[in-house]
């Protein structure tokens, strides 16, 4: 660990020209940069996907745990009475924190996406909705259903859990998958850099021999390669991340039109997260090159 720190220090403060002692290798260098950029690009999406899935899971989970809806389906003249009766029952139900009937304008807003804003609800047999907020302990849904059935024939309790639970599950899976993809991409960067570093070390055996003969330590020689690959991975990943972030920023935003979905775009401070990718890439490249150089140099005379 102490040695790693010394190498990091050397990287930052050491001979800025150290990598000049190794000849430039145009094509493989470009491949490394390109691969790092591509990985970073994908990693940004994996990250966006995970965060979005996380948001969905949390939102659905919260609502699932706390709210349900009662629909009053009754002829127009009985609707108000039945609504009153249902609210009365809810007031005396253990575990219900709060219940209220949605106002006409709220119902209108909910239905507007399907029927248009001009619709007059009063003329239609639209069910009255009652929003029920539970206490943390929850309530006995089956018991409530029985009481409603007895006293308010038009009431239907919809406690959301039946259809939302699998969705929350799926969203959580999706989030896990996103992070797993990000980890795999990181590992791929490590593998790619290791291969590239081995190739570079092998191709420069002659250069390394000369450096050894004039008194260069393994550390100095390794540094030349470490510096080069770390900077390449960082540069490539930075470009890839920025491009991916631009693409994410211009994705159509779904969250306004359908309240239960969420945009793939980053939200709030999450915009800062993709900037970690180039840094992580650089760290991975640093470690991978250091290990590759250590192994190779030890074998030389």
């Amino acid at each position: 660990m102490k040695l790693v720190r010394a190498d990091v220090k050397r990287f930052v403060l050491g001979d800025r020209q150290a990598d000049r002692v190794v000849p430039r290798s145009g094509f493989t260098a470009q491949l490394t940069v390109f691969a790092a950029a591509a990985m970073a690009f994908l990693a940004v999406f994996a990250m966006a996907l995970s965060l979005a899935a996380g948001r969905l899971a949390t939102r659905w989970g919260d609502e699932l745990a706390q709210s349900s809806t009662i629909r009053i389906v009754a002829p127009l003249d009985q609707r108000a009475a039945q609504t009153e009766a249902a609210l009365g029952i809810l007031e005396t139900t253990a575990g219900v924190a709060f219940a209220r009937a949605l106002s006409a304008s709220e119902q209108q807003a909910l239905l507007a996406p399907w029927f248009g804003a001009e619709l007059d609800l009063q003329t239609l047999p639209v069910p009255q909705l009652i929003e029920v907020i539970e206490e943390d302990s929850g309530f006995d849904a089956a018991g409530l259903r029985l009481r409603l059935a007895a006293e308010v024939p038009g009431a239907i309790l919809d406690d959301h859990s039946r259809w939302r639970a699998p969705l929350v599950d799926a969203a959580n899976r999706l989030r896990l998958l996103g992070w797993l993809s990000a980890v795999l991409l990181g590992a791929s960067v490590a593998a790619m850099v290791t291969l590239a570093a081995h190739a570079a070390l092998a191709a420069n055996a002659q250069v390394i021999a000369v450096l050894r003969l004039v008194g260069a330590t393994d550390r100095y020689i390794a540094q030349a390669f470490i510096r080069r690959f770390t900077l390449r991975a960082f540069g490539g990943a930075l470009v890839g991340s920025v491009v991916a972030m631009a693409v994410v920023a211009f994705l159509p935003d779904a969250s306004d039109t359908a309240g239960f979905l969420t945009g793939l775009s980053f939200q709030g401070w999450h915009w800062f997260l993709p900037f970690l990718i180039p840094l992580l890439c650089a760290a991975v490249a640093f470690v991978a090159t250091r290990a590759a150089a250590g192994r190779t140099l030890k074998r030389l005379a």
Partner: protein
Amino acid sequence: MIELNNVAYSYGGGALLSDISLQLAPGSFYFLTGPSGAGKTTLLKLCYGALQPTSGEVTLFGDDVAGLARDDIAVLRRRMGVVHQDCSFLDHLSVTENIALPLRVSGRQSKAAQEDLTELMAWVGLTHRAEALPPELSGGERQRAALARAVIMSPDVVLADEPTGNVDWEMSQRLLRLLVELNKMGKTVLIATHDLSLIRAAKSQVQARVLRIANRQVQLAGADL
């Protein structure tokens, strides 16, 4: 500074060198001779720590080579100027940068070092080739560049492996004069060569001792060459 005690070396087959004891006296001028394939390069490599002896011990500046880590040997090399038989360079760097390479890898680049470098380039007569790349140099220019690179760190000892290997007589005399000058400045010089006429030419300029490899051993040769 360089001391060999009962050293033997083999590349895997039979022994190439055996039972060699040798101590380089500071400030002396040595030739190491013997037919091609006798093991001159091998002996030099033992002297600068590129090879570990199969048996016996090699002591460099007081340290037993067997106990040194790779990086310790790298640091020791900065005190020894070595002109290699193939005098390889970094072909993508200019002659100047190649000659300054030991300074760079040891982190000793400075303004004073820069002036030394200019002076050294003039001394070996390469000032006009400063910006050339190594592959563009002639054989003699390569050898002089290699010599300049070997002495840029002002080492105590200069080891040169066939420094006149593929240059004409004129140029070999010039290189010899440079090596003799280094010796006059107090540096120990050891030149491996199979060229006996070079040794004869040197005798008029410097008090040289001649080591000859024969029958896997090193003998101090008489004056009769």
